[in-house]
């Protein structure tokens, strides 16, 4: 691991010759993320971020810089990447059209592939694989609908959902078992 990639919090100097440029190259190739290198650190994203205003350690501008510097460990640890609410305010307001929200999305994908999927998200995807919805549609819900004279909840073709999930490899990526139907 290069120094720039180190998670050592005491490290304050990032040596240019130690930079890991593979992350900026990988991100810049993803549709929507092409303009990463145009970020000039003005901080519009941080100023307008609904989360950043309430949480000091969450500054989208830093995520852009850390991506450029290839600081994967620091980016992938904890829940940093998963605190973005995807409100897209940064994307709409960036004077350089950097589309940071898209870059954070792409970073989540890379994090997931490298084993850093947030455990809370694994639960959401597990629910989707189990029920076809992100919640279980319980008997209580169906009875309540009947009383309200609402039609039954559309019956998900769960076999189709699971087959699609298997074919696109989300089961292996997330680490869940999908039974063959």
């Amino acid at each position, binding site marked *: 691991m290069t120094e720039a990639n180190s998670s050592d919090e005491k490290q304050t100097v990032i040596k240019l010759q130690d930079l890991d440029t593979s992350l900026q190259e990988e991100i810049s190739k993803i549709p929507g993320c092409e303009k990463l290198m145009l970020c000039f650190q003005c901080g519009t994203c941080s100023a307008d971020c*609904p*989360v950043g*205003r*309430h*949480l000091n350690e969450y500054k989208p501008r830093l995520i852009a810089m850390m991506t450029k510097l290839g600081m994967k460990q620091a980016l992938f640890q904890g*829940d940093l990447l*998963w*605190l973005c*609410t*995807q*409100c*897209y*305010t940064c*994307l*709409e*307001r960036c004077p350089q059209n950097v589309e940071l*929200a898209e870059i*954070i*999305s*792409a970073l*989540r*994908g890379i994090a*997931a592939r490298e084993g850093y999927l*947030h*455990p*809370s*998200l694994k639960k*959401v*995807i597990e629910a*989707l694989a189990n029920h*076809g*919805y*992100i*919640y*279980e*549609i319980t008997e209580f*819900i169906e009875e*309540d*609908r009947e009383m*309200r004279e*609402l*039609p039954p*909840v*559309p*019956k*998900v*073709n*769960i*076999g*189709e*959902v699971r*087959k*699609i*999930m298997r*074919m*696109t*490899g*989300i089961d292996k*990526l*997330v680490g869940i078992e999908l039974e063959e139907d």
Partner: protein
Amino acid sequence: MRYAFFVGCTTLARLPSYEVSTRKVAEALGVELLDMEGAGCCGTTYLKCIEPRTALALAARNISIAEDMGVNIVTLCNGCTEVLTDANNTLKEEGELREDVNSILAEVDREFRGKVEVKHFVRMFLEDLGIDKIRARVSNPLEGLRVAVHYGCHLLKPFKIMNFDDPEDPTSLDELVNITGAVSVDYPGKLDCCSAPLLTIKRRNELATEIAREKLSTVKKYADIMITVCPFCYLMYEQSQMPPNNPIDIPIVHYSQLLGLAMGIDYQDLALNENRIDASVIKNFQNR
């Protein structure tokens, strides 16, 4: 007018008042909402990040059901709207991706053909029904009621996908409120996110609540009620005023409930009695 009705997980499982009131209003406006047999979760905004191919294929599966029905999709949830619209646009525009997704869908005997549109009901109201037609149905205007409009992020953003209204200075929902006789008030932070996605992340409940309550405290100074058009926003703002949090007493109301009242539909029939922050203040503005 007929649409494939994509209700979405959260409304189905947690917020019947939103579905009930939308169905009542749609019926009164002559809009037929058809059930989408076999449909499921849109794919979620999360899956779009984690494995875009899975998200695209799941969205395309849902869209293909509406294509079989031969009608456009109407949605209730901002999140579903963004996920389905993004997939629909992408697959209509990009041949290679469409081939790839269709090779997956072929295994479940489905095909994305690019034949339908996806619209949130706010957009459908304005673009398909037209504001004059809705205004003509307002029989019980709610004169003097001050309404704080909350658009929610994914109704408008990102604009490159949603291509609707103006993400920085929107007017669609304000117009829809104003035709009910109520007044959409301007207030600081109107476009701020509700922060509901943070509820998914372990131990971030307090942060989400703090963000939501900041907006509610502002709304309290300017308005009698807040309206939403997304189940996530609704639940976030309602929940963050419930114990153990201190009360703020801003009723959160679905737009469909507000319009329904102005159209003369009964309070109870719109399930307004189920809103957990008592919304009966609205009754003071009826039949003045």
